[in-house]
């Protein structure tokens, strides 16, 4: 990029723009690479962000989250991890560990918006063993007995409400999961 005083203005302009493009492109590439480091270190998929607090999650999603009023003693509060997928579809995943140390004992997935669906990046696919409809105060819900890829058995409850979809994944009894789901309340300001 050394300047040559004998160069014509036209060549000078081309050289100037070329060098500027190269430097900005290199800077952009370096920034992109740095941006990818947290995903490499945490193993999270692109687009998934870990958030430190429920307040922070609500700020990011722009809606109040649902939390269970019934919280079994077997679970630890606060959530062990909170992940947000910016979308579309935007959704969040709150993971509660068990008091015995079991990770992800209860997971609550929430996708705000009408006809929303929880992002598959947050709620990995499982094998459904059995499915039944469940009575809920509003909307419709399905209770699923599922098998995880590691062979463990658990329960999913997917609840389609008018303006959001809630999904709960629980490593425990199905009736307890339904009770937890029915106790879900939106956080107040």
């Amino acid at each position, binding site marked *: 990029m050394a*300047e040559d005083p004998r160069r014509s203005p036209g060549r000078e302009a081309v050289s100037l723009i070329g060098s500027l493009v190269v*430097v*900005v492109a290199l*800077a952009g590439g370096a*920034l992109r690479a740095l941006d990818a480091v947290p995903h490499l270190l945490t193993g999270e998929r692109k687009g998934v*962000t870990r958030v*430190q607090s429920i307040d922070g999650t609500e700020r990011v999603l722009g809606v109040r989250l649902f939390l269970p009023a019934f919280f079994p003693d077997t679970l630890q509060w606060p959530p062990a991890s909170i992940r*947000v997928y910016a979308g579309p579809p935007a959704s969040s995943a709150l993971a509660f560990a068990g008091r015995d140390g079991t990770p992800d004992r209860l997971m609550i997935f929430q996708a705000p918006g009408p006809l929303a669906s929880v992002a598959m990046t947050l709620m990995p696919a499982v094998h459904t063993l059995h499915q039944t409809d469940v009575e809920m105060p509003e909307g419709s819900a399905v209770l699923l007995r599922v098998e995880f890829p590691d062979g463990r058995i658990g329960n999913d409850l997917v609840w389609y409400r008018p303006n959001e979809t809630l999904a709960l994944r629980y490593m425990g009894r199905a009736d307890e999961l339904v009770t937890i789901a029915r106790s879900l309340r939106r956080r107040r300001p």
Partner: protein
Amino acid sequence: MREYLVESLLHACVAAAVVETLLRGWRLADPRERLAYRLLVLILPLVLPPVLGLLAPFRATPAFADSGALFASLHWRALRIAGLPVDALALVGAASLGVGLFIRDLTPLVRGRRSGLVPQPADGPDDLATTVAEIASRLGLTRAPAVRCVAAPGPVLFTTGAWRPAVVVSTGALARLDPEIRRAALAHELAHVARHDLLLGWAVMLARALLLFNPVTQVVARAAVLEMERRADDLAARATGAPAALAAGMAALGPRRGPANGGTKPGAVGPFNEFLADLFTKGRTVALEARRRRLLDAWPPAPSPLATARFTLSAAAVTTLLFFVV
């Protein structure tokens, strides 16, 4: 607030890195151009985050962080060291460094003002006012600044007063300089007046204070001040036609290190202060020597072709790049 501080810090880092690469790549030698680029790096982190926050609020959303941004601090917030988010730790570390650098440069100023030493007026040579008026006229100043001669054995020569500038010169400085070198040294001070460097210096200090937490700003501000000095060197050398005399003046009036040179370290009490004082003097000596060599070996600097277009395009490119850094 934390998001704003982190974004401002990131903008300063990116802008400084890109501008430094461009300055080195293009080998820009004219301090007027270099100063413009330095000021750009100072201004962007101060202005851009709040302006973009107002004009483009979507930049703060996770959707932009994931799909639009080149770099998003939100992603780094997920990483934790000792239970603390990485971005908060980086901010605390940077803020400590930034405050340290700011205090380092502010201390001599405050110490100078609190020293309580009131300089005694002294009579200067008869031709001093005439010389100043003549150089001021050459520099395009409609009114020559006042000249205050003070009785002091040390080599003191500086300009003071942002609104009503005055050149202060000590009897010690006058004794050390022969007429030609004295003329060049005075021209340098008057060049600061002609270019309103005192006002600009305070503006730079204000930017430093506002971005106290940002070590990059602190370093770039120092570089900007150095460019102001080089610009004044060039103007003085053009006005007097004697760059070598100006270089000789720097050697005569510049900081001297160590007792062998008769130098003292004011306020150097205790090993830490002595270390800092040594560091200041060393830094000033190196910078002054570089300015001297530039005047002797590489003067006059060749202005770069298409300077205005170059700067405008660079500013636009850096601003565009920073748009995608959140």
